[in-house]
């Protein structure tokens, strides 16, 4: 029980408090919206970790595997370009006089297939249907439909993705037609044609 002993007018204060104790609820989509943001945060953490690992790996790499930046003046740049052109010209002349080398076979590097289930969530209460498109399905429309959650606003789909960086977007169908929608909660990238997609990085399961 509350200690109202130092309150001279307990009844009136009790009345105020009783009113303020009335339960207050958020709308039914709150949990889905929060979890959508939480999943985005989780993916962002994976993304940040991936970048950190790449930086760390590069820092630990031997000198011949590190990336360097050359700062050249205009004249030295011109001199370097002329030198490269000269070397290419000589090389082309020599190659044209030799027997054609056998075509180089690109050996397929054996890599372990490692995949993770990634949940994609979009909150859009005006959508009638939503599809996921990405480089993992050849940007094929209407191949990966999202399912509408019980609250009617959130759309979800879970896809098994191999480790690495993937670009994706949503196709949202509403009363105005179909729209390309980049995930508003993740890092975005724009292609040469101005189309914006989103990025998800998938780390290998340990």
């Amino acid at each position, binding site marked *: 029980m*509350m200690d109202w002993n*130092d*309150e001279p*007018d307990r*009844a*009136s*204060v009790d*009345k*105020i*408090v009783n*009113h*303020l*104790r*009335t*339960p*207050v*609820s*958020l*709308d039914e989509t*709150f*949990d889905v*919206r*929060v*979890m959508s*943001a*939480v*999943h985005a*945060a*989780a993916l962002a*953490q994976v993304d940040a970790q991936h970048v950190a690992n790449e930086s760390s790996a590069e820092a630990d790499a031997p000198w011949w595997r590190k990336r360097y930046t050359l700062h050249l003046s205009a004249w030295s740049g011109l001199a370097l370009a002329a030198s490269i052109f000269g070397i290419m010209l000589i090389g082309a002349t020599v190659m044209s006089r030799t027997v054609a080398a056998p075509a180089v076979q690109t050996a397929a590097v054996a890599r372990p297939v490692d995949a993770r289930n990634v*949940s994609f969530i979009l909150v859009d209460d005006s959508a009638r249907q939503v599809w996921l498109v990405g480089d993992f399905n050849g940007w094929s429309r209407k191949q990966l439909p999202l399912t509408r959650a019980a609250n009617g606003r959130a759309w979800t789909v879970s896809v098994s993705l191999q480790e690495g960086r993937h670009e994706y977007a949503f196709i949202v169908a509403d009363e105005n037609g179909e729209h390309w929608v980049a995930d508003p909660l993740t890092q975005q990238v724009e292609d040469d044609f101005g189309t914006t997609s989103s990025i998800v990085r998938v780390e290998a399961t340990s």
Partner: protein
Amino acid sequence: MGNGNLSDRPDASIVAAVLTGNTDAYSVLVCRYRDAYTRFAAHMLGSLEDADDALQLAFVRAFRNLAQCRDPDRFGSWLYQIVVNECRTLAARRAKRERRMIHNDAHMNAASTNHPAGDQALHDEIQYALSRLESAQREAFLLRHVEGLSYEEISEITGDGISALKMRVKRATARLRDLLEGVVT
């Protein structure tokens, strides 16, 4: 989601599940604390929409920093600190933008002397009076008397001293009584 078996587990167990990669398990914590903290945020900010923003930011911030929760058994108390901070930040930002509805003495006097009958009207009066309190006083009053926390708990959540908190609650109570004179008496 498969969180059915998690919903009965203590906070520490769920926190451990989330930290080991079961992001979906976090929804159990969201469901567990959402309503209790919504009331505080709604009264602090005077708006359900702002409370929604504050709670969402708090839950996401808590998730991002979950590894820093030193005592997962007391996740709720740790989350409360984040909610209080988010409310303070939102209130300060909103005050700068002057987004709140116009509050002035003429409005208050008119409302006090000629308020409509009914619970909703009374609730509005009380909420309005609450909004007139200094932010720190409102926060202390709500945590102490509406949420029923001890001064020790409030001190832990807000980082303020107990004597200062008691003074704020006392002043808030006196101010509310003044503002609501003739309404609740």
